[in-house]
């Protein structure tokens, strides 16, 4: 049903002439008709963007997905219950035991504040909603808003037609949907909106030279900084863009006003976010923006001097001196700043963006995250589909009609595409650019083609169809006079274009429904009789922890589950998904990969009461701890050299069956995962202890635990919780 609705949006563009004839009877002027159609289409796209993200709510329930959103949800609950000051000053002792975490100073509060604000507003109006519903539906709501921004951005870049197509494309683009389905309550949901809004407002400011738009873009930037760490992309892309404009001789007063206002105000505003603080003046990642800011001043100053001197020869020598001294001063300032430690060097994450191999060699914790993997080609196809082909076409059109705005979108598109290739998760950042550029391609092509069709049949009506006549159409118009069957070709091409677009809509719906709408907390599979089987083991375990363990119990698990344990289990964890302390994570990794008695020492020193492991051997759930185990070894070994990766491998192979390495068969993770698993027959015709996730019979069936005891195992064995026994009495 949704698929039909999705196809509507591109086809609305198609049927608009038919609608217009109906509207003619209402005696509206052409412009009014066009406006009405545009608003209607935009409204439909707005609704579509929202409802296509509701698959998970319909299939499962209104719940928070994945890992990080659980932290955001917990923080939002705290904010709505205790108020803003308490939230800002919150020291969370439930995570990173025994270190704790200063929540207020280590997060981007934009998302939570937005949700809380919407919640309070709704409450004020008299809607007794639950904060969970607000959080779940926040991302779809912002996705809808993003379509509006995309429309205006497209309009700014090209024309309103391109804007509409851009809005329609971004509404259902899987690259964006993957992070904005209902329940995906994460920073990105809000941040993509803020990112696109900032860019749009900045381009608008550059186009108009208006201080008001520049101011607006500074506020957009502020919102972006408050919402997501990806703001670094803005603060580097915009200076780069300005640099390109300067180099290509497109410097103008408009640019000067727009950039200076945006940079200075944006910087001052961004400093209000505690997590960002003075980074804009102290961090290497933000120095490009500052450099360009000074460069702009030099440019302006030179212009003024040129005007004063009025003599090219004098000016030339002056130029030499100023430029060398300015560059020299800048370089010295940067060098001194860096050497004295005032300016921090680039962070590892930034390096790993520029050099994809960096993280793999130096920071295993970054390399271990599945979202930080280099993108596979299939992912591009999966997330962009035909946009991948339309993108170069759109670039072509942009180059054809170069302007300040199109240069911006080209730069945005190219840089973000590069980053998308470096890390899977950055496909998200590239999505708006890809959609906008593709929209230009679609819009320009279809417009040209329809004009061809129309001029042939009704030479009188000409290009009155939609808005401005481009230079392209006039050249095409002159061309189509020669071959007689050009009209047929144009119609065929149009049909082909719409076929492609409808395939895109179908693909998007399919991807959304199949791949991006599962909450990952609840797992679903098909049973033997074709019925749906639900594995709700995570929540079973977390709720057990919440109800049946002491209030102050400390739970050790791999960091992936930290946020979920604190949010759903309401218990203190040793490490969580905010991977700020590598040593602490490495300690947990070391405990998991040591023998039981060594691990017991580590766990005693961390006051651990319970150990939680995720195990998929019974159900065949492959993202369990055994499959993640090599990363624990690697991260643990990165800090504690006693842990050596080769000890766990046999001839470079990672295995859990009889041929596994002896250290592997006796380490804590292995023992906890497979404790008493050897007694269980998982599959008919297989020996007991057959691991379905890895398809082997386990190598160590006789596991004895000395310092731990099984406290709880969920019904499908996915989560296993062990209690750490108190030390034996010495006497």
């Amino acid at each position: 049903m949704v698929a039909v609705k999705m196809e509507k949006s591109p086809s609305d563009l198609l049927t608009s002439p038919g609608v217009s004839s109906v509207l003619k009877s209402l005696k509206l002027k052409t412009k009014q008709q066009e406006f009405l159609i545009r608003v209607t289409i935009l409204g439909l796209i707005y609704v579509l963007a929202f409802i296509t993200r509701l698959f998970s709510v319909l299939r499962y329930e209104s719940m928070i997905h994945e890992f990080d959103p659980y932290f955001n949800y917990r923080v939002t609950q705290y904010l709505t219950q205790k108020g803003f000051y308490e939230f800002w000053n919150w020291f969370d002792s439930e995570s990173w035991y025994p270190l704790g975490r200063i929540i207020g100073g280590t997060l981007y509060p934009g998302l939570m504040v937005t949700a809380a604000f919407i919640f309070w507003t709704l409450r004020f109006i008299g809607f007794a909603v639950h904060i969970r519903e607000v959080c779940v539906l926040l991302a779809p709501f912002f996705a809808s808003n993003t379509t509006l921004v995309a429309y205006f951005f497209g309009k700014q870049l090209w024309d309103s037609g391109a804007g509409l197509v851009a809005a329609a494309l971004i509404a259902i683009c899987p690259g964006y949907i993957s992070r904005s389905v209902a329940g995906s309550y994460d920073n990105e949901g809000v941040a993509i909106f803020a990112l696109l809004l900032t860019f749009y407002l900045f381009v608008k400011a550059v186009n108009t030279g208006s201080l008001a738009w520049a101011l607006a873009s500074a506020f957009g930037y502020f919102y972006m900084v408050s919402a997501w760490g990806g703001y670094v992309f803005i603060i580097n892309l915009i200076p780069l863009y300005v640099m390109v404009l300067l180099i290509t001789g497109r410097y103008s007063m408009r640019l000067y006003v727009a950039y200076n206002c945006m940079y200075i105000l944006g910087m001052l505003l961004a400093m209000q976010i505690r997590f960002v603080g003075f980074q804009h003046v102290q961090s290497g990642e933000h120095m490009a923006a500052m450099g360009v800011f000074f460069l702009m001043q030099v440019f302006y100053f030179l212009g003024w001097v040129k005007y004063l001197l009025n003599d090219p020869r004098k000016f030339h020598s002056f130029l030499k001196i100023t430029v060398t001294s300015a560059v020299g001063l800048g370089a010295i300032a940067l060098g001194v700043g860096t050497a004295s430690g005032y300016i921090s060097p680039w962070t590892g994450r930034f390096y790993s963006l520029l050099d994809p191999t960096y993280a793999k060699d130096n920071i295993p914790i970054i390399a271990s995250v599945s979202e930080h993997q280099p993108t596979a080609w299939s992912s591009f196809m999966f997330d962009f589909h035909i946009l991948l082909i339309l993108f170069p076409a759109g670039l072509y059109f942009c180059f054809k009609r170069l302007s300040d705005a199109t240069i911006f979108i080209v730069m945005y598109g190219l840089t973000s595409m590069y980053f998308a290739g470096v890390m899977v998760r950055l496909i998200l950042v590239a999505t708006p650019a890809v959609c906008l550029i593709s929209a230009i391609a679609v819009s320009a092509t279809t417009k040209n083609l329809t004009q061809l069709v129309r001029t042939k049949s009704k030479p009188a009506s000409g290009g009155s169809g939609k808005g401005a006549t481009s230079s392209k159409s006039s050249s095409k118009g002159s061309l189509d006079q020669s071959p007689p069957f050009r009209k047929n070709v144009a119609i065929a091409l149009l049909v082909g274009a719409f076929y492609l677009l409808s395939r895109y809509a179908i693909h998007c719906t399919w991807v959304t429904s199949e791949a991006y709408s599962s909450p990952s907390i609840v797992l679903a599979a098909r049973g033997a009789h074709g019925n749906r089987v639900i594995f709700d083991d995570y929540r079973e375990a977390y709720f057990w922890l919440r109800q049946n363990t002491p209030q102050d119990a400390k739970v050790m698990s791999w960091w992936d589950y930290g946020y979920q344990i604190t949010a759903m289990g309401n218990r203190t964890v040793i490490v969580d998904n905010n991977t700020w302390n590598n040593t602490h994570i490495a300690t947990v990794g070391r405990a998991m990969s040591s023998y039981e008695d060594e691990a017991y020492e580590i766990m005693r020193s961390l006051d651990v009461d319970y150990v939680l492991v995720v195990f998929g051997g019974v159900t065949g759930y492959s993202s369990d701890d055994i499959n993640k185990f090599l990363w624990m070894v690697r991260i643990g070994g990165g800090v504690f050299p006693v842990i050596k990766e080769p000890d766990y491998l046999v001839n470079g192979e990672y295995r859990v069956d009889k041929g596994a390495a002896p250290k592997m068969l006796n380490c804590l993770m292995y023992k906890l995962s497979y404790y008493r698993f050897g007694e269980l027959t998982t599959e008919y015709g297989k020996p007991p202890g057959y691991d379905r996730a890895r398809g082997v019979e386990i190598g160590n069936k006789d596991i004895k635990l000395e310092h731990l005891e099984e406290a709880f195992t969920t019904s499908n064995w996915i989560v296993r919780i062990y209690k750490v026994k108190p030390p034996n009495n010495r006497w």
Partner: protein
Amino acid sequence: MAALIFSLLFALPLLAKTTSSSSPDLQILHADRQIDLTSHIVRVYLTLKVENIGDDPASEVLLAFPPAQFDHLALVKAAAVGGKKKKKSYTSLEVNPTERPDVPNGTKYYAISLLKPLAKGGATTLEILYILTHTLEPFPVEISQSESQLVYYHDSAIILSPYHIKQQATLVKTPSNKVESFTRVEPSNRAGTELKYGPYEDSGPYSYSPVIVHFENNNAFAVVEELEREIEVSHWGSVQVTEHYKLAHAGAKHKGVFSRVEYQSKPTASGLSSFKHLLAVLPPRVHSAYYRDDIGNISTSRLRTSSKKSELLIEPRYPLFGGWKATFVIGYGVPLQDFLFESGVGARYLNYSFGCPLADTVVDKLTIKVVLPEGSKNPSLKVPFTVEQSVETKYSYLDVMGRTVVVLEKKNVVPDHNTPFQVRLSCPLQFQPSIYACRTTDASFCIFPFLHHLHRVPSHRSLNTEVKHLTL
């Protein structure tokens, strides 16, 4: 222990003066007691044949309880038996706790008011039911997964009574024939699941003979520590009920490991005292039922509806072992016309069932909140037993002046309390809030029909550790 001391005190010859100035002389000709220990709620059925041997007509009969038992009494009901053997008729009588001066050892009383005073020499038969909760004491206090649960039951072989009892007998029913031990007070014998004390002849007033029965009871000791039921009346055609449960297993505490292997492979020898299902009996025509907790929907529930009743079989997220707890919420809507009736002009009354819909469950503290439509005034209440009541205001969707909420509180509630109660309200209809439709958003997010099967495509897009697939 308290019971033991108490009984020692009573072991003294207890021919204290029973004739206080006000109470007339009664004696019990024949007493027959059945103690049903098959569940964790103890039901005692008592049949008394009372005769007035004094001069004054007697209008009430006293029931005596030791103080330890009195605290656990959930309900006392009495009925007068009339008619012949074949055609017995029962008339329920009023029972109220009373105080008496100069009572031995803090004995507590309930007084049964007879329909008409018993004249001199007259006799009448009374059927009495009283229900005790939290009286089965697990021993051993902690058991492991493979052990079955043993409990103590303390009582007296001779019925405690302020009257002389000519002849009496007690029958104790245990859930299985595994009885570890029981105190012998001759004549007493055991056959199968039945344990018989008596018949005893001529026991004086306040005679007491403590007995302990130690037996196996693997029934679900399901105790709802707190239950809050919110009954929201909407004149738009629905009564929305939301019930917040704090459930606990009040039996012997679970000790040591919980082994899933054993629990799954040996269902008859492992976790015998644990339970994983509960049955909630809901009114017929229930719609949009949901079952969830703080962290989301619980998918293990089945709703069966018929024209007489609806049954919601719920399974907590995990089996409950001794001492384990679970909290959850059950919610459902029922049609308004089944529960709201008109009485006179502008006045209506809501007729709804008191008590907990879960079968065989004790509720330690029950709070019922009846949320009346906005603008309704002067609510009045009719409950068949004593409850604490108060009134508060609640703001829900688009409320301007808030809704009147009648709050009823009662401790120690058993399934026998599931009798209807009435709230009368006068409701000016012009004050109807206009957007009741919003209400549905709340419910519709909680449980959704599962549309179709989801075939998952791995997306590898979550922000957690990457999974290395084994290559073997």
